[in-house]
């Protein structure tokens, strides 16, 4: 049936006079497990499949989709997409055109050692039970949670230019967190990351290697100890961010503003625009000379990222592109349509959440390349500063210029040594001046690709998983503690 849908949709679109059309046939399997205080809250497995047809007709887009997958539905859905493209022409100022692309016929699958969907629920729960039990054993921990999430996405992409690409992408993630509540104050510590853990592309082996059990008691103890810690001071100081917090900083202040559709105004009503306007391309100083940020979807150089694939959802081969090179803003995340607007070619960043949604310009893996320092060296070289770990809150304006982040925990640094734990740390700043103050980045040994599985964009909103390679880094003259002022 898959082959039939693909042929019917493409032939029907051609006959309707489409400039271009593509079809994605997707089968998505998902499993999520949550354990709280030793009780299994949820173990849910879901499956969703369907197809979507995108038609560019006389320079206007139409898209339709369905979970029904018969030949008759392929005809109906393609006709709907054509009719919608005709309607789009009613409000068309200029024809939409696509930058050129090579066609491809290929198959690619995420390399996995253990397919998570072949591992029994009992085995998964045994690991979570052990970690949660250790968390809960710490006196003062009120809520001990552990979770696992797995996705397997099989997708066939075909277009009227002759591409026929099959991919099977598997994402796995897990994490534990401890919540301690005392005297009306709530403190949380998480491992390996907050908001249900660390996520990567790969199999169940990632979960087994994560060290949730080994780190559970430490995390629980830190959550309880935070109640007795001093409130994070406010002021301007040197800040060292751990890799997971830096991953989200990259996501918000580099990934989003380099999305070319935002720059061109597509998202002004929802996700916003960008301060990285096209007049800045190639010469704007985004950060210090140490700062090199790449959008890298390639399995060779970005293995294991949530944005790792062989082809994007327009059939463009995965690419590695410098968004910021030696501190200078140098390229965008783009699609065939948006790249054409600036006389360029797609950087391969079109991704759709599901068979029922259109692809949008999305982050793949936006990575801060490692430097030559280390966390220990950065701390030793800091007279007075704050080391911050594990995101707790995040917010940035609609141009992606002004941000405020909070982390679960902080440590004050004095004269090159960590001297004291502090609670409720926050920092804020402006994107170019913050990255301009980057004075050290840890090396490859401390570099990890972190996963952000919940990035929202578009109308209707789509949630996409993105990856962010980062190691700890140091920033000078950062405003700290504003959120908690009076």
């Amino acid at each position: 049936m898959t082959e039939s849908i693909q042929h019917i949709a493409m032939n029907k679109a051609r006959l309707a006079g489409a400039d271009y059309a593509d079809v994605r046939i997707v089968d998505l399997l998902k499993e999520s497990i949550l354990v709280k205080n030793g009780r299994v809250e949820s173990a849910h497995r879901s499956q969703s499949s369907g197809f979507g047809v995108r038609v560019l007709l006389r320079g206007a887009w139409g898209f339709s989709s369905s979970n029904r997958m018969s030949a008759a539905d392929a005809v109906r859905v393609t006709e709907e997409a054509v009719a919608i493209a005709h309607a789009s022409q009613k409000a068309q100022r200029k024809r939409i055109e696509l930058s050129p692309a090579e066609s491809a016929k290929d198959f690619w699958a995420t390399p996995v050692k253990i397919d998570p969907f072949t591992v029994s629920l009992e085995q998964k729960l045994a690991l979570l039970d052990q970690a949660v039990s250790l968390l809960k054993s710490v006196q003062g921990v009120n809520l001990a949670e552990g979770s696992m999430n797995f996705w397997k996405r099989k997708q066939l992409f075909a277009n009227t230019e002759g591409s026929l690409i099959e991919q099977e992408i598997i994402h796995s993630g897990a994490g534990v967190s401890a919540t301690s509540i005392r005297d009306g104050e709530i403190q949380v510590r998480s491992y390996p990351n907050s908001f249900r853990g660390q996520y990567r592309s790969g199999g169940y082996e990632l979960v087994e290697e994560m060290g949730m059990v080994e780190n559970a008691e430490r995390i629980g103890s830190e959550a309880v100890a935070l109640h007795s810690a001093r409130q994070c001071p406010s002021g301007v100081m040197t800040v060292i961010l751990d890799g997971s917090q830096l991953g989200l900083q990259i996501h918000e202040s580099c990934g989003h503003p380099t999305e070319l559709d935002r720059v061109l105004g597509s998202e002004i009503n929802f996700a916003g625009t960008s301060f990285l306007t096209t007049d800045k391309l190639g010469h704007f100083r985004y950060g210090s000379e140490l700062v090199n940020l790449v959008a890298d979807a390639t399995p060779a150089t970005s293995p294991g990222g949530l944005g790792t694939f062989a082809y994007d959802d327009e059939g463009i081969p995965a690419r590695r592109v410098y968004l910021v090179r030696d501190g200078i803003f140098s390229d965008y995340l783009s699609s065939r349509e948006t790249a054409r607007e600036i006389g360029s070619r797609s950087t391969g960043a079109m991704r759709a959440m599901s068979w029922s949604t259109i692809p949008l310009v999305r982050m793949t893996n936006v990575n801060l390349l490692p430097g030559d320092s280390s966390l220990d060296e950065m701390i030793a070289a800091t007279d007075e500063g704050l080391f911050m770990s594990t995101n707790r809150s995040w917010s940035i304006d609609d141009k992606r210029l002004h941000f405020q982040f909070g982390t679960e925990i902080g440590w004050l640094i004095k004269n090159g040594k960590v001297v004291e734990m502090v609670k409720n740390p926050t920092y804020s700043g402006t994107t170019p001046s913050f990255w301009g103050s980057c004075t050290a980045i840890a090396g490859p040994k401390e570099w990890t690709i972190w996963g952000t599985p919940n990035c929202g964009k578009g109308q209707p909103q789509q949630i996409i998983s993105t990856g962010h390679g980062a190691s700890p880094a140091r920033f000078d003259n950062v405003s700290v503690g504003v959120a908690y002022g009076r």
Partner: protein
Amino acid sequence: MSPSESPMAGKRELDAHRKESAIEFLEDVLSLSEAAQTEVLLEADQGALTRFAGNQIHQNMCSNDCRLTIRAIEGEGAGHTSTNRFDSDSVKQALEWARQAARSGRVPARPADLPGSQQYAQIKNHFEKTARLSPDERAEMALRVIKKASAAGAEAAGAVSNSQETIAIANSSGLRAFHSFTNSNFTATISADGFTGWCDCTSADVTTLDVDERGKRALERALAARNTRKLEPGRYTVILEEAAVKEFLDFLAWLGFGAQAFEEGRSFMCGKIGTRITGENITIVDDAFHEEGSGIPFDFEGVPRQRVVLIENGIARAVVHDRASASRTGTSSTGHALPLEFTYGPLPLNLVMKAGDSDLEQMIRSVDRGLLITRFWYCRVVDPARTLLTGQTRDGTFLVENGEIACGVNDMRFNESVLEAFARADMISRSLRRVNSTLAPIMKISDFRFTETVGE
């Protein structure tokens, strides 16, 4: 991947938005189940959205999905799964997976028995005109606003959407529930010389969607926002329009109005039931039956929804329950269960804030120096116990001086506690406006804390 849309050979295809067809389908699924108890939920969603930017349509789509969720119970154990493949093999496979998971006994069935037949109130929020809105009609609605913006030298961006959604539930204890409803939404951001005004409106009945008036207002705001002044951070009196108030109400729901947060000690309502937690003029209820709302008469377990008073005259009154939280705490479900794959526990989805006796013009006239705020952006929780949020203003922030709108101002970042801010609200509008599924007023609040000026 059979073309058949029924698990039973020879049956007619499923039309999920028609009651008889949906219930017949669910009864067919129940008849195939070998579990001791089974609950089946059908969620069908037919939606379309036309998106425009730079005064032209740039994205335009429709989708059609239908999903079956199964809860099997064996003894004290439950198993959950969902699928959108309805051929016989796929449905049987899903039923068997759920039954095996239930037999493992690892996921507790809470409670161990499914509810029987229920009586539901009627809510009229399905309109054929909304369900059948064509791509041409959506394009024409977008064009009306685009043309006005273009004539004023401005640019319009936004979306027109319509949907038809159906929820049907059947279980082996005899419960049968069906509700179909429609939704339409128009939203636009108008840009003039880099300054923006924003609007949105939502209605079950697309013929009542106030596209022209809301679009005109957004254009006027964009034009008025030009020649912006930059203010210093600090505490200001603010007038929050409905979309901004809605953000605050939704975060209260998330942080504290659900039984799970309450049980776990994370809710700001913990230990406060019967005591004052915010201003005396603040009453917040969850009411699926409000005439301007978008409610469904039952929750995702088929339990009838109740109207629940959450905060009354500033006093914490109650949280909402599903059957699991109710059974743990010895009370009854208030009909606020979410679908099974969600793990947040019960939540209120139809918040209504009690209206006051003022209006926007009166509020503006009463302000010596303050800000008029159209909407917030990227609100996040800084400290849940204090209901401390951060976020920015966006798309229409104005300085009000001596009782008049003086000029646009740069957007500002706030760090403010919702409950503390509501305690400083001295004026609330007499009219409520629906923003998504929340009915919110306009509020005037003193000493609102801004920590940063946003902008290049």
